[in-house]
C-alpha cells in the first residue's frame, strides 16, 4: 500500500514536471513579438548620409534604440572621454557650444547651445565670456544659471581623483594661481577664481595663455550644467539632472539606460534639438554580430560607437545593391600611423627614419587592415576630415607601394645596410597586428629587420609604448598607433602627438618623443592667432615639418562602414563626431 502510494506520488510528480516542462517549452517556442509594421522602407543610397541629411523629418513618436557591444566610460557628462558619449550626452547635458548637425565636414561648424552666442574673447584670447540663453531649466524645473556651468567645469577638471575618466583641458588652460583643490575638497563659496559668474547668465573664463579655439573646448560635455546640491560625485551618474531634451527614466550600470522626454525642456530655448522620439533606449554589451542583425531587422536604430559593422556583415552588405544602399563609408576622424622613435638608435638619424617612410608599402597595410572600406591611404598627419588638412605626399611612390631604391639610398645615407629593431602593436587589435606584420615584410625588402612585440591594449600607453624608458630599453623603434582629434581642428589633433611638452614618462602619446622647437613654436603661435585661415596655414606647415623630420609614417585615414537604418530619420554622418551619425535629432518611423 505504502509502496503503491509512493509510486503514485512519483508518477504525479513526474506528470506535473512533464506538463510544466512542456508548457515552458511551448511558451518558449511561441512566436516572439516582432513588431512588424509593414514593409521595410527603401534605403537612401550608398554614402547618402555623408552628403546630406537622410530622411529629414519632424515626425514625433516611437522608440529610438542604440546598441553597443561594450560599455561607455560613463554617462556622467563630467566623466567621459569617448566621442560617441560627447555626441549622445547632448540629449541630457547641454554644453555651452556644440556642433551643427550636418553631413561630413559641414558638421564641424561650431554653434552656440547653452550659450546664446559664440564666446567673446578679450585680453588677446586669454579671457572668454559667454552669455547663457534666457529661460533655461533643469528637468526638475529649477533655472539653470552660470554657476551650474562653473560647478560642472570645477567637478570635472579639478577632482580627477573622483571623476577620473574625462580630459583635463580646463585644468591645463585655466589660470589657477591658488592651486584650487576642486569642489569636493574646497568647500568655499568662491570656488575656482579664474571662472567668474558676475550674474546668473554670464560666465567668464580667465586662461593662463591665449587660446583662440576655446569655443571648441566649451563644446565638451564638461561645460553642461550640474546643480551642486544634486552632485554626489561618482554616484551622480545614477541620477543625472538633465538640461537637455531627454532625461533618464532608468539606468542599469553596464546594461541599459532609458531616456524619456524632459518636460521642462523648452524648444524656445533650443534651436538645435527637436525632441522627436518618445523614448530612447541604449542597450549595452550586445554581441557585435547581433547588433548588425538588429540594425538590419529594424530592431536597433543605430550602433552607438560609430565603429561600423563587423567584417562578415560588411561583406554581405557590400555584395548586394540593396545592402550597399544602406551604408555610409565615412572617415572616422583618425589617422592610423607608425611612430618612429627618435630616441632609439638608429632612428635618431633622420635618414634612417626616411628609409622607413620610403620602404613601407601602404597598399599592403591598407589590405591588411580590411581594404579601402576600412581606410584610405594616408600621406599627411592631419586627416582630411579635420579643419587644417592640406593635401601633400612627401614620400610619394608609384601606387603608394613603397620605393625600395629610395629607401636603400636613405639607409646608405644614414650609414647602415641593415637595421635590427622592434615594432610594437596592441595584441587585442587584430587589424593593428596585421598592419604591423605587413610593415615588417615591407621593411625586410630594404634590409630593416623588425620583430613584432605585442602588448595588451589597456596597458599600451601606461606600461609599454607610452613609457619612453621602456621603449628605449626594449629597442622599440617603430610603434603602431591610431589617433583621433579631441576637437576637429589642427591643434586638437596635433598638440598631443607632436608637442614636446606632451612627452611624459608614462601614458605618453607623443610616441616618437618628437621635440622640435619649430613645431612647438608654431603650435603656440597658432593657438594664439585669432585668424582661422592663418591658424590652418600653420597646421599645414607643422604637418610638413613633421613629415620632413619623418617621425610619423601616416598609413591610412581610418574609415568606417556604418549601416544606416531605413527607419531612422534625420541621419547625417558628421566629421565632428568621427563620422558617427549626429545623435541629436535621430527619430524613427517605426511604430
Amino acid at each position, binding site marked *: 500500500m505504502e509502496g503503491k502510494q509512493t509510486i503514485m506520488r512519483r508518477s504525479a510528480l513526474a506528470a506535473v514536471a512533464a506538463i510544466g516542462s512542456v508548457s515552458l517549452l511551448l511558451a518558449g517556442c511561441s512566436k516572439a513579438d516582432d513588431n512588424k509594421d509593414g514593409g521595410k522602407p527603401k534605403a537612401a543610397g550608398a554614402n547618402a548620409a555623408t552628403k546630406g541629411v537622410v530622411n529629414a523629418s519632424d515626425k514625433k513618436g516611437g522608440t529610438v534604440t542604440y546598441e553597443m557591444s561594450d560599455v561607455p566610460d560613463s554617462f556622467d557628462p563630467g566623466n567621459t572621454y569617448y566621442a560617441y558619449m560627447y555626441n549622445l550626452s547632448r540629449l541630457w547635458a547641454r554644453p555651452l557650444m556644440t556642433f551643427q548637425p550636418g553631413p561630413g565636414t559641414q558638421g564641424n561648424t561650431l554653434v552656440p547651445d547653452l550659450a546664446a552666442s559664440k564666446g567673446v574673447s578679450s585680453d588677446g584670447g586669454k579671457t572668454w565670456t559667454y552669455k547663457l540663453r534666457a529661460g533655461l531649466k533643469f528637468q526638475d524645473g529649477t533655472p539653470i544659471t552660470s554657476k551650474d556651468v562653473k560647478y560642472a567645469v570645477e567637478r570635472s577638471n579639478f577632482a580627477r581623483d573622483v571623476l577620473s575618466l574625462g580630459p583635463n583641458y580646463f585644468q591645463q588652460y585655466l589660470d589657477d594661481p591658488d592651486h584650487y583643490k576642486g569642489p569636493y575638497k574646497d568647500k568655499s563659496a568662491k570656488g575656482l577664481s579664474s571662472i567668474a559668474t558676475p550674474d546668473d547668465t554670464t560666465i567668464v573664463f580667465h586662461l593662463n595663455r591665449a587660446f583662440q579655439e576655446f569655443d571648441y573646448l566649451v563644446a565638451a560635455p564638461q561645460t553642461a550644467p550640474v546643480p551642486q546640491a544634486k552632485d554626489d560625485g561618482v554616484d551622480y551618474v545614477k541620477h543625472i539632472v538633465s538640461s537637455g531634451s531627454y532625461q533618464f527614466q532608468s539606468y542599469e550600470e553596464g546594461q541599459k539606460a532609458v531616456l524619456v522626454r524632459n518636460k521642462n525642456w523648452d524648444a524656445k530655448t533650443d534651436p538645435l534639438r527637436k525632441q522627436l522620439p518618445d523614448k530612447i533606449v541604449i542597450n549595452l554589451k550586445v*554581441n557585435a554580430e547581433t547588433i548588425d542583425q538588429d540594425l538590419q531587422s529594424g530592431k536597433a536604430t543605430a550602433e552607438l560607437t560609430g565603429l561600423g559593422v563587423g567584417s562578415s556583415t560588411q561583406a554581405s552588405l557590400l555584395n548586394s545593391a540593396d545592402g550597399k544602399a544602406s551604408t555610409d563609408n565615412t572617415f572616422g576622424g583618425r589617422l592610423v600611423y607608425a611612430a618612429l622613435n627618435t630616441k632609439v638608435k638608429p632612428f635618431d638619424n633622420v635618414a634612417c627614419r626616411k628609409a622607413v617612410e620610403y620602404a613601407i608599402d601602404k597598399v599592403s597595410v591598407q589590405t591588411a587592415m580590411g581594404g579601402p572600406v576600412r581606410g584610405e591611404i594616408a600621406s599627411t598627419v592631419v586627416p582630411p576630415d579635420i579643419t587644417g588638412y592640406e593635401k601633400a605626399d612627401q614620400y610619394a611612390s608609384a601606387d603608394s607601394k613603397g620605393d625600395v631604391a629610395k629607401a636603400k639610398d636613405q639607409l646608405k645615407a644614414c650609414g647602415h645596410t641593415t637595421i635590427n629593431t622592434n615594432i610594437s602593436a596592441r595584441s587585442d587589435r587584430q587589424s593593428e597586428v596585421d598592419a604591423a606584420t605587413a610593415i615588417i615584410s615591407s621593411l625586410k625588402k630594404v634590409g630593416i629587420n623588425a620583430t613584432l612585440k605585442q602588448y595588451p591594449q589597456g596597458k599600451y600607453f601606461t606600461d609599454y609604448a607610452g613609457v619612453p624608458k621602456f621603449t628605449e630599453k626594449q629597442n622599440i623603434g617603430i610603434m603602431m598607433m591610431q589617433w583621433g582629434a579631441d576637437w576637429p581642428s589642427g591643434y586638437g589633433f596635433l598638440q598631443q602627438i607632436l608637442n614636446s611638452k606632451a612627452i611624459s614618462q608614462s601614458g605618453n602619446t607623443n610616441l616618437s618623443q618628437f621635440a622640435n622647437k619649430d613645431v612647438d613654436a608654431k603650435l603656440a603661435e597658432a593657438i594664439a592667432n585669432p585668424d582661422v585661415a592663418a591658424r590652418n596655414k600653420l597646421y599645414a606647415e607643422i604637418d610638413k615639418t613633421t613629415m620632413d623630420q619623418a617621425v610619423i609614417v601616416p598609413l591610412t585615414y581610418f574609415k568606417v562602414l556604418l549601416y544606416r537604418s531605413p527607419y531612422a530619420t534625420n541621419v547625417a554622418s558628421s566629421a565632428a563626431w568621427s563620422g558617427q551619425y549626429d545623435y541629436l535629432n535621430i527619430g524613427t518611423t517605426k511604430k
Partner: protein
Amino acid sequence: MISYILRRTFAAVILLLVVSAVTFAIFFLLPRLVGQTADQLAQQYIGKSPSKADILAVKHNLGLDQPVYVQYWHFIKGIVAGADYSIGPTTVHCDAPCFGYSFKTHEAVWPQLTSRLPVTLSLAAGAAVLWLLSGVTVGVVSALKPRSLFDRTFMGIALAGVSLPMFFTGQLAILLFVFKWPIFGRDYVPFTENPQQWANTLLPAWCSLALLYSAVYARLTRSGMLETMNEDFIRTARAKGLRERKVVVRHGLRAALTPIITVFGMDLGLLLGGAVITESVFSLPGVGQYAVQGITDNDLPKILGVTLLAAAFVVIANLLVDLLYAAADPRVRLS
C-alpha cells in the same frame, strides 16, 4: 552527517581563502614583481595626461599606495565586516560581504554580482535540465541498443555537439531562430516579470549550451550503462522477474550515475560562476558578461569578485555532489 558537512564547510572556507590569496597575488603582486609601479596601475583608471597630484589622489582612493598584504587584509576584512569607501563628497558603506569597489566605475562589486546572478542562474539551470535529460536518455537508449541506428546517429550528434564551439552554435541559433525565423526573442526579462518571454529568450541559449554539454553526459552514461548492464546483479534482477524498466532505471542507471553526478556538479558550479562565452554570444547580462567587462577594463576588483564567486560555486557544488553520492550509491558512507 552534520559533522561531515561542518568539516567540509570549514575546508571550503580555507580553500576559498587560498583561492582569494592566489587571485589577489596574480593581479596585485605579480605586476609589481615584473616592475609595474603603483603609479602605472593607478594611471590606467585616469583619463589622458594626468598630473602627478591626480595620480597620487587616485592611488590613495583605490588603496594602491599601501603594501599588497595590507590591501589583501582590507579585502578580506571587507568580505567579513563590510567596508567604507570615501571617494569624493560622499562616504559609501559597502555591506558585508563587500567584494570591493570597481576601480573604473566606483560601483560596489557584490550588488552587481547579485543583480546579475539570476540571469546566470536561469541560464545554467535551464541548460542543465536539458542536457541532463537529453544526455542521460540518449546514453541509456544507446547503451541498451548498442551499434543500432539510434546509437550511431545520436552518438554522432553528441560528438558534433561537443566539438562545435559555442560562438558557432550560438551565433547560428540566433541567426536562424531569432532573425531568419523570429521564433525566439532576445530581450531577457526576469522570470518574475514575464515567464513566457523569459523562457522564449533563454531557450536558444539553453539548447546551444545543452548541445555542448549533453554530449559528454550521453557518452558517460552510455559507457557506464554498457558496463553495468553486463554485471551479475542485473542478471539477478532480471531472474527475479523485475520489469525491464525497473532493471534499467533502478539497478542499471543508478549504478552508472556516480560519475555523471560528479561531472554534473563541477559543470554546474563552473557555469554558475558565469557562462562567459554563452552570455556574450546571447547578450545576456549575467555574471560572465560582468567578468568579460572586468577583464576588458582591467578592473581588478570585478575580476576578483567573479573568480571568488565561481570558486565558491564549484566548492558548494562539490559538497552537494559528495552528499548525493550517498543517496545514489548505498555503499558510500559519509564519515
